[in-house]
C-alpha cells in the first residue's frame, strides 16, 4: 500500500472524513436551528438588528437574577441529592451480589419511561391539598422549591444511574487483586481504585443532572408554584407574550451551563485513562453478606419510592373524579372520548420512537467512536464535541422553535422534512444526543487504544476493528443508548409540540393537552400506557442483553 503522507494512513483519512460528515450533520440538526432562534436575541420584534439592546434590558430587570439564582439553587440541590443516590444504586447493581438484580435495574429506569407530567400528577395525589400524605409536609406546600426538587430527583435519577452503571460496569479485577494483596483497606480501595475509575462517569452524571434541571420546564410548570426559574421565563416570553427576541436572550443565558460542562469535560478527559486494557481481567463481584444486605436494603428503599409514585399514577388513572368520587373505572383508557385522535397518537409515538432509536443509536455511537478514536484533527473534533454537548442545555421549546425557523425557511432544501414524522425523529435524536454521546464515550474510553494499534499493525482496516471488536464490546452500552432514545422519544413534549402535523400528533403531547383540558385521570391513563410500553421494550432489552451478554461478552467471565 503506497503511503500518502507520513502519519496519515488510509484509516486516518477515512476517520477524518467521517468526523467532517458528522460535524455537518450535527450542524444541521443542532447548530443551525439553534442559531436561527438565538439570533433573534440580537433583533427587535420586527427583525431589525439591535445589537445587545435586548440583553441590556433583560439584565437590568431584577427578575433575571431571581430566576437565575432559583435555577442554580434548584439545580445544585437536585444534583447533590441525585448523584450520590445514583452512585450508590449503580454501585449496588454492578459491584455487589444483588438478588433480582435485573428487577432493580429495571425499576431504576421507570422514571425515564414516564412523561414529566406523571410525577407532577402523582405528587399532587400524594402531597397536594387533598393528598394522602399531606400531613407529612407539616403545613408546608408541595408547590414550590420542595416539590420541584422531589420531582427532579425522581426524573433525573435514571439519567445519572445509566451513566454511572456504564462507568462502574467495566473494571479491571487485577487492580483490586493488587490492592488486596498489598493489604489496602476497603475504604482506601474505594477511594483510590473505584472512585477514580468512575470519575469521568461521576462528573458526566453531575453535569447531565445539573443541566437537565436547569432546562426542564415541565416540572416547574406543574409543581413549581410561584418559584420562577429560567426555563419558565423562556415560556413566559415565547408562549405567553410571543416575544421571540427575549425568549432567545433567556435561551442564550441557559446555554452557559452547557459551555461550562463542555470545558469541564475537556479538562477531565485529558486525565482519563483506559480502564479496560487489552490485558484486563473483568471484575466479577463475589458475595459478601454484610455489604450485599445493605445494598439490597438501599435498592429496595429507592425502588419503593419510585414504585409509589408510579402506583399513585396508575391508581389515579382508574378513578372517576379526584378527589370527590374515588370509585374505579376503565373509562379513562378510552382516549377517543377526550382526544379526537384517540389511540392514533399512541401509534404515532411508537413509530417515532422506533425510528429515533434506530437512527439515533447508529449516529450517536458511530459519532462518539469517530470523535474518540480519530488521531489528531483536534479543531474539528472539538467542534463535534461542542455540538454534542449543546442539546442538553437547550430548553426543548427553544430547539422546537429553532426547527421551525430553520427547516421551514423558504428555500431550505431540507424543507421537505417539515411536518413529517422524519422531522420529529431528527428533532428527538438531536434533543437527546448528549446523554447517548456521553454513554458511548464513557464506554469507549474504557477500551484500550491498544486494540486499534494491534489492528493497525495487522493491517486490519479500522472500520473492521470497529465492527468486530469495538462495537461488540460496547454492545450493552449501545443497547442502553437505543433504549434511552426510545423511551425519551415516547415521553418528550417541549420541543415536538411545535413540530407535529395533523397526522403525526404524539401521545406525550396528547397527554399534556388532555391534562390541560382538566381530564386528569385520562392524562394519567395515557401516561401509564406510555410507561407500560417503555417497560415492555425494556424487558425485551433485558432478555436480549442476557442472551447477547452470554454470547458476545463471554470474554468478561473467567
Amino acid at each position, binding site marked *: 500500500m503506497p503511503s500518502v503522507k507520513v502519519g496519515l494512513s488510509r484509516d486516518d483519512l477515512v476517520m477524518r472524513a467521517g468526523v467532517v460528515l458528522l460535524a455537518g450533520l450535527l450542524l444541521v440538526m443542532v447548530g443551525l436551528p439553534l442559531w436561527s432562534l438565538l439570533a433573534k436575541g440580537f433583533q427587535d420584534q420586527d427583525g431589525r438588528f439591535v445589537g445587545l439592546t435586548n440583553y441590556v434590558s433583560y439584565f437590568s*430587570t*431584577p*427578575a433575571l437574577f*431571581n*430566576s437565575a439564582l*432559583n435555577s442554580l439553587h434548584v439545580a445544585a440541590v437536585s444534583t447533590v441529592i441525585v448523584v450520590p443516590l445514583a452512585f450508590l444504586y449503580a454501585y449496588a447493581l454492578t459491584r455487589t451480589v444483588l438478588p433480582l438484580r435485573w428487577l432493580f435495574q429495571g425499576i431504576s429506569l421507570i422514571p425515564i419511561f414516564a412523561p414529566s407530567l406523571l410525577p407532577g400528577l402523582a405528587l*399532587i395525589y400524594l402531597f*397536594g*391539598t*387533598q393528598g394522602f400524605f399531606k400531613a407529612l409536609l407539616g403545613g408546608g*406546600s408541595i*408547590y414550590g422549591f420542595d416539590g420541584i426538587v422531589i420531582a427532579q430527583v425522581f426524573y433525573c435519577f435514571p439519567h445519572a444511574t445509566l451513566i454511572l452503571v456504564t462507568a462502574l460496569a467495566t473494571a479491571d479485577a487485577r487492580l483490586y487483586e493488587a490492592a488486596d494483596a498489598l493489604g489496602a483497606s476497603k475504604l482506601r480501595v474505594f477511594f483510590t481504585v473505584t472512585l477514580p475509575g468512575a470519575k469521568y462517569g461521576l462528573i458526566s452524571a453531575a453535569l447531565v443532572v445539573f443541566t437537565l434541571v436547569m432546562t426542564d420546564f415541565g416540572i416547574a*410548570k406543574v409543581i413549581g*408554584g*410561584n*418559584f*420562577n426559574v429560567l426555563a*419558565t421565563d423562556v*415560556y*413566559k416570553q*415565547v*408562549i*405567553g*407574550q*410571543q416575544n*421571540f427576541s427575549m425568549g432567545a436572550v433567556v435561551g442564550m443565558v441557559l446555554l452557559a451551563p452547557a459551555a461550562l460542562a463542555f470545558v469541564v469535560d475537556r479538562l477531565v478527559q485529558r486525565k482519563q485513562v483506559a480502564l479496560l486494557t487489552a490485558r484486563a481481567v473483568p471484575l466479577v463481584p463475589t458475595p459478601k453478606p454484610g455489604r450485599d444486605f445493605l445494598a439490597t436494603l438501599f435498592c429496595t428503599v429507592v425502588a419503593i419510592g419510585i414504585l409509589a409514585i408510579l402506583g399513585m399514577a396508575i391508581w389515579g388513572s382508574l378513578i*372517576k*373524579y*379526584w*378527589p*370527590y*368520587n374515588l370509585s374505579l373505572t376503565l373509562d379513562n383508557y378510552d382516549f377517543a*372520548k*377526550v*382526544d*379526537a385522535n384517540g389511540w392514533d397518537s399512541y401509534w404515532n409515538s411508537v413509530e417515532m420512537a422506533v425510528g429515533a432509536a434506530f437512527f439515533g443509536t447508529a449516529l450517536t455511537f458511530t459519532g462518539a467512536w469517530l470523535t474518540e478514536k480519530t488521531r489528531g484533527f483536534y479543531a474539528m473534533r472539538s467542534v463535534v464535541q461542542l455540538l454534542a454537548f449543546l442539546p442538553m442545555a437547550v430548553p426543548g421549546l427553544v430547539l422546537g*422553535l429553532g426547527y*421551525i*425557523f430553520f427547516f*421551514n*425557511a*423558504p428555500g431550505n432544501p431540507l*424543507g421537505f422534512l*417539515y*411536518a413529517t414524522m422524519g422531522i420529529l425523529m431528527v428533532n428527538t435524536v438531536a434533543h437527546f444526543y448528549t446523554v447517548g454521546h456521553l454513554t458511548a464515550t464513557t464506554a469507549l474510553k474504557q477500551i484500550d487504544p491498544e486494540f486499534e494499534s494491534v489492528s493497525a499493525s495487522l493491517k486490519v482496516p479500522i472500520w473492521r476493528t470497529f465492527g468486530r471488536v469495538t462495537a461488540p464490546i460496547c454492545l450493552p452500552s449501545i443497547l442502553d443508548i437505543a433504549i434511552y432514545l426510545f423511551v425519551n422519544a415516547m415521553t418528550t413534549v417541549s420541543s415536538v*409540540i*411545535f413540530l*407535529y*402535523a*395533523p*397526522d403525526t400528533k404524539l401521545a406525550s*403531547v396528547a397527554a399534556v*393537552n*388532555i391534562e*390541560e*383540558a*382538566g381530564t*386528569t385521570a385520562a392524562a394519567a391513563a395515557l401516561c401509564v400506557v406510555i410507561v407500560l410500553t417503555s417497560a415492555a421494550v425494556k424487558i425485551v432489552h433485558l432478555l436480549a442483553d442476557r442472551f447477547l451478554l452470554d454470547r458476545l461478552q463471554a470474554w468478561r467471565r473467567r
Partner: protein
Amino acid sequence: MIDSTLLRRAMLAGVTALAAVGIAAAPALAQKTRLTVYTALENDQLDPFKKAFEADNPGIEIAWVRDSTGVVTAKLIAEKDNPRADAIWGLAASSTALFASMNMLEPYTPKGAEALKPMFRSGKTPDPWVGMDAYLSLVCFNTAEGKKGNKPVPASWADLTKPDYKDSIVMPNPASSGTGYLTIAAWLQIMGEEAGWKFMDALHQNIAQYIHSGSAPCVQAAKGERLIGIGLDMRGASEKTKGAPIDLIVPKEGLGWELEATAIVKGTKNLEAAKKLADWAVTKKANELYAKTYAVVALPDVKAAPVNYPVNAEPAMIKNDMEWMAKNRERILAEWTKRYDGKSAPKK
C-alpha cells in the same frame, strides 16, 4: 445485451407502477381538498366541528393542528415566512389581531357576517378575522371545601381580598397566559389604574399561586386543590358537569372577556376552501355548535345556554377596549411582574 434488456424491463416496470399509483391517487386528490386548520378549540369540540362542516362541504376535509392558545400562536408566528396553515378556526382574537398587524392574514368578510353582533367584527373592511364566541374570566368557588373551612361565598372581586381567603386563590399568570392578561386588564379598566393596582396589591396577599395557564385555575378549584380559581368559564362549567362541587360566580363589578375568531392565512394554496370555512363559521348551524359550550356567541338570534353555566354572565361583560389592551400590554406586564412575580414581591 442481457443487462440492458433487464434494465429496460425494470425501468418499464417502475414507470408502470408509478403511473398506476398516479392514476389511483389522482381522483382521490381531485375529490377532496385537505384544509389544514390551526386551532385552540377544546379537544372534544374538534370532532363535532369537523363533521358538521364537512357534511355541508363534502369537497373539503379538515386536518386539525390543535394546541393551547400560546403554543398555536407562537407556532403560527414562527411559520410566518412559509405558512403551513390554511385557516384558523377557534383562536383568541387578540392573537388574530396580532397576526393581522403582522400582515399574516388574508382579509375576507364571510357571507353573512353582517348579521353578527358588532363586537364580533374586526371593525375593518374586509375583516382580517371574525369572532365566533366569547369566553369570560370568572370566579370558580369550591363549595365542598368552602363548607369544610366555613368560608363565605364571594360575590364581587372586592370580596376576594378578604382575609378569609388567605393563600387560597389561584389565578393565571398574565405574563404567561392570555387569560391572565385579560383578567387584570379588565380590573384596570373597571376600577381605573390606581385603584386597580391597589386591588391587586390586596389580592396578592390571598393568591396561593399564579399559574401558567388560563384553564388550570378552575380545574384546580374543581378538584379541591384550591378553594377559589379565577379563570376560564367553560372549563369550570364542564368540571361541574363531571361532578365537581363548584359554583361559577360572576363578580358584580363585571368581567373581562376574549373572543374566539376565524381567519384565513395569507398565502394559502386553498383559498377557495378556506373562504368556505370562513363562510360556514358564521352560519346559524355553526353558532348553534358554539352555543353548546359557550354562553355568548356571535349571532344574536342563537340562544346559548350551556349546562351549568351562570345565566347572568353576558350582561356582566365589561366594555372592553381591545386597542387599549394591545397598546398597553408591555407596560402593564412589566409593572405586574415587578410587583407580584415570584420572590420579587415577598408577601407580608
